[in-house]
Each structure stands twice: as structure tokens, then as C-alpha cells.
């Protein structure tokens, strides 16, 4: 029977068990579940948000029903907590064990495999199928927090170089400007560019699942693996159906994580025959335009400054009554996102 491990002694037993099975114990989970046999743990697994992790089964008990029991428990709890999609990171050799539980493999990169419960990626691709255009196409993945003249410059330059440009706006809501606003400002800001399509990334690019470190300021070996996995997923599963042969990015003078992501692009994407093009950022006399500058000027209520950095459409929205709560939030939160 699966039990939730909550008391300190159980958690510490689980930690030993996980480490003995060659995995790293990480704090910050929502549930930790285990199965005991004669007072000893024989299976452990955890859920953090929509990610299942630290799944370990005693070697002598593998290939039985224990994995299914633990995963059932964690999936039920995740579903009750309101998550539509659940994901698991595991070693590539265990991917088939999860496929037998109706998980589907998203991507394998070096020593890591990422799977999702159900068929969300296929459904997402099917729902975007009508947006697919023929030709040698390009893509940018952007957060646009909010949409600036810098984004506009990147999009115009990129759109010139390809038949069609897809603009994937990061769906994950970890930024000051909520997703609905960010994507709307992009749509309004590129309305007059003929060969672009704006769509969202769902869970499948720069999300809490594929690349959580993007939303923090960490740069460690884990972040590096995440970036590469995120890019391998893009290259292997998203780029082919959309006919994407070039991925564009702006040069990154400010943020170490994003600069690292650009470097990872150049390492990973060419292996999948995708060209990486970095486009020099648009400058004003105060340096390269960035969304964080816009937020800083917004926080200082420097409207002349803001107007120099954003297109009309963004400016009009920022001044609108709808933006009142965001102006307030920018005031209080002068962070990166």
C-alpha cells in the first residue's frame, strides 16, 4: 500500500533510499510517497507541482507492480491539485517502463528522458496544425514581458530572412505581465508584418517543466542540462511539423541565463539541422533595449522613457486602466521577471 511520507524519520529513510538508488534527493516537493514491506521502504516517489521525480524501486522488486502503484498515487494527487498534465524526468533506460503506464516520451537527451502523462504534445501540435505554413520557416521563442521595440526589431529582421516566422510566446505565468497580456501585445505589435504567426509554447518550450531555471537566477549544471533538453525537445518535436529550419534569438548582453541559453542553442540545434541566428539587439543611446528597462522606467513613472522603448500599441495598453494593477506590481517588484 502506498503511504504518504510526512514525518521526519520517514523522509530521512526516503532520502537514504533515493540516494542508494543513484538519484539525488531534492527538497521542495508537494508529496512524497512510499511503499513499505516489513517496515522497510521498497519504493519511493515524489511530486513537485506537475513534475514527478525521485522515483526509485528496490532492485529486487523491480518489474513488478510497485512503479504503477506509486505513480498512480502521485498522478491522483497531481490531478486533485489541479494539474492537467504531468511530466516525469527519468533515465533513458526506464522510459519504456513509463510508456507502459501510458506516459509518452517527449525527448531523450544524453542521460535524461522527459515523458508526459497522456498525449498533450500531440494534442497541442494538432491544435496548431492549421497555423502551419509551407516553406523554409523560422522561429523565435520569447517571453515579451512586455513587448518592446527590441522585440519588434528582432521579429522584422528575422521575418525578412525566412518564408514564414512563428513567434512562440512563453505561456508559463511567472512574469509581471500575465500571459494573456503578453501575447496580446505581441499580436498587436506585429499586426502589420505579413509573414508571421503568433502562438504559445504550452508546456513545451521554456516552461516550468522544460527549463525552470529560466525563471530563477540560478546557473548550475542542472540548468545546463535543462536548457539542452528544452532545445532538444524543440528541435526534435516542434520544429519538424512547423517546417522550422532557423531559430532566431537576440544577442543577450544583460542576463547570464539567457546568454547561456543562446550558447546552448548553438551547441544543440545544429545537430538537428537547425541554423541558429543571433540578431544584434536594437540600441537607443542608453544601450540595448530590454523589457527589464521598460519595467524599470514604468516603476519610476518615466513615461517619456517608456515611449522610447515600446511601440504605440504597448504604450497605449500600459497607460490604460486595465494596466493599473500591473503598474502597481512593477512598482513593488523591481526584479528580473
Amino acid at each position, binding site marked *: 500500500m502506498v503511504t504518504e511520507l510526512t514525518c521526519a524519520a520517514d523522509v530521512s529513510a526516503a532520502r537514504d533510499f533515493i540516494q542508494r538508488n543513484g538519484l539525488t534527493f531534492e527538497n521542495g516537493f508537494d508529496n512524497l510517497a512510499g511503499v513499505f514491506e516489513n517496515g522497510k521502504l521498497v519504493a519511493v516517489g515524489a511530486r513537485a507541482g506537475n513534475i514527478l521525480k525521485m522515483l526509485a524501486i528496490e532492485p529486487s522488486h523491480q518489474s513488478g507492480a510497485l512503479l*504503477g502503484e506509486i505513480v*498512480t498515487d502521485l498522478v491522483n494527487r497531481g490531478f486533485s491539485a489541479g494539474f492537467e498534465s504531468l511530466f516525469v524526468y527519468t533515465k533513458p533506460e526506464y522510459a519504456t517502463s513509463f510508456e507502459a503506464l501510458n506516459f509518452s516520451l517527449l525527448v531523450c537527451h544524453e542521460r535524461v528522458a522527459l515523458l508526459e502523462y497522456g498525449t498533450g504534445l500531440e494534442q497541442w501540435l494538432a491544435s496548431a496544425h492549421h497555423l502551419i505554413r509551407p516553406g523554409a520557416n523560422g522561429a523565435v521563442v520569447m517571453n515579451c514581458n512586455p513587448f518592446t521595440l527590441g522585440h519588434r526589431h528582432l521579429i522584422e529582421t528575422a521575418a525578412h530572412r525566412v518564408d514564414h516566422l512563428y513567434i512562440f510566446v512563453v505561456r508559463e505565468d511567472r512574469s509581471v505581465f500575465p500571459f494573456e497580456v503578453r501575447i496580446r501585445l505581441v499580436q498587436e505589435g506585429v499586426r502589420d508584418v505579413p509573414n508571421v504567426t503568433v502562438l504559445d509554447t504550452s508546456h513545451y518550450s521554456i516552461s516550468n517543466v522544460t527549463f525552470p531555471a529560466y525563471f530563477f537566477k540560478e546557473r548550475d549544471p542542472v540548468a545546463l542540462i535543462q536548457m539542452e533538453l528544452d532545445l532538444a525537445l524543440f528541435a526534435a518535436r516542434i520544429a519538424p511539423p512547423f517546417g522550422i529550419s532557423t531559430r532566431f534569438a537576440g544577442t543577450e548582453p544583460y542576463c547570464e541565463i539567457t546568454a547561456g541559453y543562446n550558447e546552448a542553442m548553438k551547441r544543440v540545434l545544429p545537430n538537428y539541422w537547425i541554423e541558429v541566428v543571433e540578431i544584434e539587439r536594437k540600441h537607443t543611446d542608453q544601450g540595448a533595449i530590454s523589457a527589464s528597462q521598460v519595467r524599470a522606467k514604468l516603476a519610476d513613472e518615466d513615461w517619456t522613457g517608456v515611449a522610447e522603448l515600446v511601440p504605440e500599441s504597448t504604450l497605449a495598453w500600459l497607460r490604460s486602466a486595465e494596466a493599473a494593477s500591473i503598474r502597481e506590481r512593477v512598482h513593488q517588484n523591481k526584479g528580473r521577471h
Partner: protein
Amino acid sequence: MRIVKKAQAGTMQSSDLMVFVEPAETLTVEIDSTVKKQFEHLIRQKIDLVLATQGVTTGKIHVTDRGALDYAIEARLETALKRGGEV
């Protein structure tokens, strides 16, 4: 019966299935199964029958199956509907 809240039933064990139901404007039935190629039509038939018997006309039904037999499908779906439904 009308589905008024999210609910689930079942397990991921072999020969069982998990059923997720939630309210929606229209009726959709999604089936993932390890034996989808061979038996999707029969699983769907069974689900449609149970939904009709229970008078469910709207909602999102998601099934992940590992080769459950038809009585298991019936029992799991009925349970999920009882948990998430209102007569």
C-alpha cells in the same frame, strides 16, 4: 447525470484503467491505451454505453487504459461519474 466537478477513479496497474472526468460544455472522450491500436473502438463503445446509461451528455472524459476488461471499464467510469456528478 451531470458532471459538476473534477473526479477520478482507477489505478495505473496492469489490466486496470484510470478515468478522469471534468465538467465541460460539450462531450469529449479521450482514450490513451497500451492496446489502443487493437481495442480503441471497443473501449469507446463501452464508454459511450455507460455515459448513455447514466444520462451524461456533457463533460470531458479522459481514460488511460492498460488493457482493462469491459466490466473494469464500466466500474471505473461509473465510480468516477458518481464522484464528480450530480443527478
